[in-house]
């Protein structure tokens, strides 16, 4: 077993983990942060995307021990406590989700994209989110959601 500690959604968390424990299982099963789901086992779908030290990563494609000492933000820590953040509100406004399973990863990936590129073109959004699969929306309204979020975030600055 290995000792790890990390800041997760602003809270200091520690644990003894098997080296093989996937980060997503540490989040879900050890820390109870079940808002981050698992969609595949080949790193294709992106449902498990979280922010690690501010950058998007696929938490099922990483060992928990590799996150030792890091700062992790999941969908459950992305907005103000108990509220939706700007991107989340935009997804609601633009009907950017249906079943909602890809949504935590999609929103997190969008946060990562917009942090780097606050005014993306449609093509940049489509390219920037292609590591996150959605089976419900056809992506049309996801793109609109990210465009709206980008506009709101630029306007707020």
């Amino acid at each position, binding site marked *: 077993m290995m000792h790890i500690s990390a800041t997760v959604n602003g809270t200091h968390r520690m644990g003894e983990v098997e080296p093989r424990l996937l980060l997503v299982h540490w989040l879900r099963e050890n820390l109870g942060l079940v808002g981050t789901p698992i969609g595949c086992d*080949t790193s294709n779908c992106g449902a498990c995307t979280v922010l690690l030290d501010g*950058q998007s990563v696929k938490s099922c494609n990483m060992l928990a021990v590799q996150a030792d000492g890091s700062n992790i933000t999941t969908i459950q820590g992305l907005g103000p406590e108990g509220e939706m953040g700007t991107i989340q509100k935009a997804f609601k406004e633009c009907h950017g989700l249906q079943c909602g399973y890809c949504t935590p990863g999609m929103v997190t990936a969008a946060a990562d994209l917009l942090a780097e590129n606050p005014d993306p073109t449609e093509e940049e959004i489509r390219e920037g989110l292609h590591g996150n699969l959605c089976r419900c929306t056809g992506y049309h309204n996801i793109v609109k959601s990210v465009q709206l979020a980008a506009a709101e975030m630029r306007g707020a600055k």
Partner: protein
Amino acid sequence: MIPSAFDYVRAGTVDEAVAALVAGGEDAKVLGGGQSLIPVLRLRLNNPSLIVDVSTVDEMRSIVDEGSSLLIGAAVTTDAVMKDAGVQADIPLLAITAATVADRAIRHRGTFGGSCAHADPAGDLPTVAQALDAEFVIAGPGGRRTVAAKDFFLDFFTTAVGPDEVLVAVRVPKLGAGWGVNYQKFQRTAQAWAIVGVAAAVKTEGGTITGARIALTNMGATPIRASSVEAALIGGPATIEAIKAASASAADGTKPTSDTHATADFRSHLARVHTARAVAKAAGI
């Protein structure tokens, strides 16, 4: 899916990593960003007894300008490579190709060195290393050695890095002024592997091609240099016709595989088409 159990060592230095590998024996595996290895572990296609994590070794996380080349630490992420000002300025072929690798999240963790050491023939970055005659700095129990790209990629998922060795860095020569570059990645969907890829760097002077570096992705067990195309191009005019004629030999000597996305014949055809396209774009046509 869930990996089999393994022991884990987080190496602080290259020497620590080598020592751990020596102690771990044949069943030890080096973990960099893990973006190729972890799916393999989860699907239990490989069940190492020891994982040696080099992703936080400082020496392997920097890019050093050596004048005529950049020494890129093996644990530098693909994202960092594509955004590095030095790489963008001096080795633009690597920067543009890195931007085609997988997706943002995977590029945040995956590494240039890891991609080369994993040596998937469908990987994009090894092709660039092959095209640019990169050198690989390998550390082992007997010290360090440097291996040229042409001697580094040996077979499917097999490189010159021995079981008790660690790839420390990749030295990529700068091409200098006057070169244009392009990477053609032919894939079925944006997150699919390349069916065929072509990395091209072309130098033109006064309408004549005076330099050409071309390598192919997924046209055999390793990234393959299209030497006959290079030879046919150099000294010839930078015209579409001449480039197409030269590219006709792009698949000569390759041994592409057949899979669910393309037969070997179709891959050969695609290699010819995309070699011409990559060269033309690199030559600014």
